[in-house]
């Protein structure tokens, strides 16, 4: 009424043209809804791209520019704290390592803070964002009018995989979590509590099986980066390997070690299987074998050209050893699925900063940047080239010479840059002998020894995924979500566990990997000896690809390995007999790392716990034990 009175006055007093009823109408344009997106194939591709963006990540940190490598949580990496806490703190790494992790400072990577929208539930909420997007794609893709059924089935397969992958991500942090397989609606009450480990594993496996039926064997190169059937088999294999491992499938003799990470009652189903079963190792072995057996049809094989070692100072692909080539050669045949997220896209603005900064290495940035210090505790996991164990002497007079003379596993030299090494990336100034040393004997500090915490002289810098070939371009990197070597090692591990000792087939798969690396075969080991060997092999082969954190957890070794003093090598310039600069070195302390047993399962963020849906709705709020 008043509205029309208003209009009437305006109509009367001004003119008939200017008083249109629509003055306050929002102009058309701009609104794209879920319905319009799933109308055409072209539009639907946008939603699918977002699903990939949220779901397929491997262990690659994403989001804020301050996240370090996932290895920051383990013994594989030390980033100077507090000097580089800006680079450390994104996932609460320093808090974690000091043993002070809490519900609101857990280390779930989630998706970081700098995103285009807000989320409920902290980092955990981001996993469910991806799950929701996958569920939306899965439910709505049939609405597309201009696509055939094969294409729709393919998309459904990708959506099922994405849903499964993000459930796995949650599972590996928290144990049993709420399972969500439909896009939930806001109407009415919804209540999804934590599911048991068994249900979560069964669901993921079920979705993977379904995805296998829907997905194609191979894809054209224009679709490189998309999920294939082999990727679904790979995810199933990894989940079943985890499920068979002692953290979830706990043999009686290991229960005591985990007692403070368990409730000791029926609630433990969200943490582990109620009863140990060796058959789970059989399932894990079969799933890994399925990946191996299906690899050829997908065009996937171990990348082995017979070139075990990288040529010193090389800056070409041809000069790289096979192991180093696996992450440098774009789309090489060993890769099953990569996260292209950081590759030459525009998703993060300057996309390549992901490699340059997140996984920043001092040599990668040459001057600016954070050193990825390798602790000697991790260095000593590398065998000598003859297959014997290696222990670092307390000090030495000439680091680059000493390091070469240690004659370690060639993979060591392809993973770590060290003071005095000749490093060559053809672009710009990233070229020359690496100067990490502190000044002495009249020599000033090496140019790369400076850091936010002052000159440190720390001598080892991990440079896996650091550009040096192809004119220092980062474009060829894509994070390996799955590569075939992992499943060779998974298969060997599962067989050894299931058969209580290695067989010829078991040796074959570990030695295929060692052969490629230029290491001698393993042989003649008993169950425990092989277990140690395969665990070490996995640690070395997959170093800095994100596996160490979960491997230590599932082996129930984290509380042994990570309660430790991490130490490093520091170099100081000394004047040699001929007046030249020599890098004398000694072992220096990094930090004392603490790993309480309750760390085996991450705590849920308090704000989610307080909503009281995780637990039984009564006495138990759903939080993991000890938190």
């Amino acid at each position: 009424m008043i509205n029309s009175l208003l209009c009437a006055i305006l109509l009367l007093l001004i003119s008939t043209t200017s008083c249109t009823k629509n003055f306050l109408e929002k102009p058309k344009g701009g609104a794209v809804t879920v319905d319009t997106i799933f109308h055409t194939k072209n539009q639907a591709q946008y939603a699918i791209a977002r699903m990939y963006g949220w779901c397929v990540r491997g262990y690659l940190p994403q989001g804020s520019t301050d996240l370090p490598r996932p290895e920051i949580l383990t013994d594989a990496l030390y980033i100077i704290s507090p000097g580089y806490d800006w680079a450390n703190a994104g996932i609460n790494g320093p808090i974690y390592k000091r043993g002070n992790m809490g519900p609101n400072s857990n280390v779930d990577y989630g998706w970081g803070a700098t995103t285009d929208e807000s989320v409920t539930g902290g980092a955990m909420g981001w996993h469910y964002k991806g799950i929701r997007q996958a569920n939306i794609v899965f439910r709505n893709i049939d609405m597309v009018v201009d696509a055939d059924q094969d294409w729709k089935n393919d998309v459904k397969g990708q959506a099922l995989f994405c849903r499964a992958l993000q459930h796995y991500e949650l599972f590996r942090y928290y144990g049993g979590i709420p399972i969500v397989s439909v896009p939930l609606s806001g109407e009415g009450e919804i209540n999804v509590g934590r599911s048991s480990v068994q249900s979560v594993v069964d669901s993921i496996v079920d979705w993977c099986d379904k995805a296998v039926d829907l997905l194609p064997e191979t894809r054209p190169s224009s679709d490189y980066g998309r999920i294939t059937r082999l990727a679904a088999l790979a995810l199933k294999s990894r989940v079943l390997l985890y499920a068979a491992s002692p953290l979830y499938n706990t043999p009686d003799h290991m229960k005591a070690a985990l007692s403070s990470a368990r409730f000791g009652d029926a609630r433990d189903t969200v943490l582990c299987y109620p009863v140990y079963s060796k058959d789970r190792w059989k399932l894990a072995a079969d799933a890994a074998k399925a990946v191996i057996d299906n690899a050829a049809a997908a065009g996937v094989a171990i990348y082995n050209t017979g070139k075990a070692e990288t040529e010193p100072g090389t800056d070409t692909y041809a000069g790289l050893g096979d192991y180093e080539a696996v992450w440098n050669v774009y789309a090489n045949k060993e890769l099953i699925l990569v996260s292209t997220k950081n590759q030459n896209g525009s998703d993060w603005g300057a996309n390549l900063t992901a490699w340059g900064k997140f996984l920043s290495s001092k040599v990668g940035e040459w001057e600016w940047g954070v050193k990825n210090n390798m602790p000697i505790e991790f260095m000593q996991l590398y065998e000598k080239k003859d297959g014997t164990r290696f222990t670092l002497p307390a000090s030495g007079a000439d680091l680059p010479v000493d390091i070469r003379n240690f004659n370690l596993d060639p993979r060591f030299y392809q993973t770590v840059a060290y003071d005095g090494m000749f490093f060559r990336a053809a672009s710009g100034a990233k070229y020359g002998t690496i100067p990490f040393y502190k000044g002495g004997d009249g020599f000033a500090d090496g140019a790369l020894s400076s850091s936010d915490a002052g000159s440190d002289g720390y001598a080892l810098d991990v440079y896996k995924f650091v550009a040096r070939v192809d004119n220092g371009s980062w474009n060829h990197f894509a994070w390996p979500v799955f590569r075939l070597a992992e499943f060779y090692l998974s298969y060997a591990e599962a067989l050894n566990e299931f058969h209580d000792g290695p067989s010829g087939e078991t040796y074959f798969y570990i030695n295929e990997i060692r052969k490629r690396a230029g290491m001698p075969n393993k042989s003649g080991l008993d169950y425990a000896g092989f277990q140690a060997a395969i665990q070490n092999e996995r640690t070395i082969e997959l170093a800095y690809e994100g596996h160490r954190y979960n491997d230590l957890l599932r082996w129930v070794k984290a509380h042994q390995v990570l309660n430790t003093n991490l130490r490093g090598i520091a170099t100081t310039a000394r004047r040699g007999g001929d007046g030249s600069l020599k890098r004398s070195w000694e072992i220096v302390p990094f930090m004392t790392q603490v790993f309480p047993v309750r760390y085996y399962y991450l705590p849920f963020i308090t704000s989610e716990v307080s909503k009281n849906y995780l637990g039984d709705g009564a006495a138990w709020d759903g939080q993991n034990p000890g938190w």
Partner: protein
Amino acid sequence: MKKIYTKIITCALTGLMSLSTQAQKTEPVAIQPQERLMKVSTYEDSTSVSVIKHRTGAIFTLSGKELQRMMVGNLLNTLQGRIPGLTVVTGSGEPGYDNPTLYLRGQSSWNIAGNRVVIYLDGFEVDLNAISSLSPYEIESITLFKDAVALSQFGLQGGAGVLWFKTVSGNVNDKIKITANARYGIQSVIDLPQVMNAYDYTTHYNMALQNDGLPVKYPNTEAYKANNDPFHPNVDWYKEMLKNTSTIQDYNLSFRGGGERARYFVLMNYTDFTGLYNNATAIDKDFGTNARYNKINLRGNVDLQLSKNLSVTANITAITEDKNTPAGFTATQLFDNLLRTPASAFPVVNPNGSWGISSAYNFNPVQRLQRFGIWNSHTRNLQTNMAFTEKLDVITSGLALKGGISFSNQYVGFYQKQFSVPAYEINKDANDQPVLDGDGNVVYIQRGNISETINEGETSHWNRNTFQIGLEYNRTFGKSTYNAGLLAKRQNYSKNGLVYQLRHQALSGSFSYDYDNTYLFDVAASYNGSTDFAPGNRYGFFPSVGLGWVLSNESFLSSSNTVDHLKLRATWGKVGNDNEAYRFLYQQWAAGGGGWTVGSDNIFRGGRREGAVSNAAFGWETKTILNLGIDITVLKKLKGTVDLFSEKRTGILERPDALVPGYTGFLLQFLNTGEVQNKGFEISLAYEENEKAFRHYLRVSAAFARNKITKRSEAIQPYDYLYSRNFRLDQFKGLAFDGFYQESDFDATGILLPGTVSSSYATVKPGDMKFKDQDGNGVINDMDKIPMGFAKLPEITLGFNLGFRYKGFDFDAFLQGVMNRTVSLLDDAYIYTHPFVNNNNMTVFSQNSWTPQTANTATYPRLSTLSNANNDQQSDFWLRNGNFFKLRSIELGYTFSLIKELDDVRVFVNGTNLFTWDKIEDLEAERLSMGYPLMRAVTLGLKVKL
């Protein structure tokens, strides 16, 4: 009738319109003698007229003359403390970039824009920065609308208060009144942070390294005492960069006059305001500039009586502003770097004549000032209003038709010449000595390159159009007086970055009745809609009602010699507040963002996701205000006004995260669910003696506003003090400082003894801060952060004004104070309080740091070169009482009439912001001495009137 309409439509079409009905409505209302006493006005000026007729409302009107008391470059900064209920939060001191933030009665929403005071100029809404560049000499009056009766007519846009500027208009005068004003002011810095000299810096740095277990960096700190050693410099960066004084000057010329048919006011003003940068043009005027702001204002206000019944008003303001700043830095960057660069970092100029630099401090301020070019910002402002009034006495006596149209816009563009040249770092060895090459020459490392760019573009623009038309009725029958108005209004607003125009459409009405000037009754309401809301929810109705009783007109008081005037007022009503940051929330949109790279050619595919779930009931924030007031005048000289208010803001937008499980993956939309309560009062008292030769006055005002969040979606917390609910908006929360960890708290291996609280933030060492463990769990974490102090926005604002006039002399002084304010040095003065971390400099703040020797007297934690998350938690160690008092203005003038032709000549000397009293050691409380400093000014002025 027909004829009249033709006339009106002709007027409308030719665009001869403007001035709101509110403004127009009020002027004809005769102000009762008793009420006239209530106005705050100066002796010279008695023309300031209240713009609203609701005599029951809480409004405050300040004469424009008061704004001439301060010599600042920004008109808004002259409002400091002068209007009770208006909090003016000072911005930077940088010429041209010094807008303050305004609040009415504190704040009542956690959405920033929900507290934004709406600005009107001559009856039409304008942007804040349309006001900042006006000259105080063109302002007739400023009125603050505070309560429901005053604000409900503004409907959706009135929720945070309205500040109404009225410019000077022409007057009937047989002689043209020509006035020239000239002011020239010398400004000087109120306060700069005190940093260490090179020797003290390097010795303390060494100490910090030793505390960290690291070797010292400066083996020979004595070298830094020499002052002339380029390898061990001692540079006072503030001195290198800044002059002691800068100038501010303005000049204007105005013409005012008119007859029955035409009246006019024309003003031209020129202002020139320079900054503090020293020797900016030392190399060439193309390479560097001092900060400089100058502007030219032109105003033409014309009132025309076209016929017996038709009058037309036109107001035009045109302003151009030019702001020059160095292209090498922003003021914030510069002052951060002046503060953080140690005296020992590098010499301004190396021994070989090149610019000095270092890798850790890659910012040579002098080089950047003198060599890196000029950023020139140019602003054009144009505001035009036209309005007409057609008396419709033909229909019924007292009825009038009014209409108006306004265009208000601003464009800001920039032109930049930016250069860079390399600087050279002296290569030093581990002993802090220069490295020499084989020939014994100093080895330099080049930093930076040569570059040159020239570019230009738009910084911002906005444009607002308003059209309004309405009817007005004023008539008295015997003892009953009726005033009524009905106004229809449309407004649209566009600016850079705004995809859809902001559009409003409103019908507002008001009705006032009084009986015998004793019983007052007001009703006002508006029916106001915005394009931001869904059809069906688009319009809101905002009613208000007010009652007044003038006791002094009752027989029992009318003969009193003591009480001249006494009025009681009460109003109640609702206003709304829409917010341009939250629009169209009733729709769910898909949103772009995220994506994926596929294919061997690395083709990136953009992503789309569903947008936030729609909020079907999306609406505005509503404020319900109750206001009680008393106006009193006793003994003809002492006047007082008291307003008590209680307001409740409901529908504050927030995401209801606290209730929805994370597993849903929902992106939640903002809902109108939050609530804040706000209560307080304003008191103003004035004593004025105008009858005697020694005329004098004393005025005091006090305003208090305390808010409390009463409803907010928050995760469940174990302790009440962790919620923001039941506390103030922006209430500080922090750890309670409990002294420093002492060596006795640790065992021989450096492990904390059992029973000593540990920190979740860092591994603590002796000399780190210890805090009270509020929840008693033995670990200091976020659960131990308790409410502390107040918020940064003060709860109390005080004003004291006194002055006299005797013979030719006049004197005026104004003192402003704020209380119940807390500031955090951690938030606002981080560089100042954190030596060495992030390569920061050291200041006097951390002089007395913890060492085993000073364990009992230390006032700062152990020095360290590393950041320390434990010590960097918000805590009462960092919080300070932010109360301050400032002598905003003091002025002494003398007026003489030497020449017959001149009406008068006045010379005066003025001081602006001369004295500050506060409780913070070594820092100025208002801005904590950070950023471009605040300035005091001493000004000489001359006014000639003829």
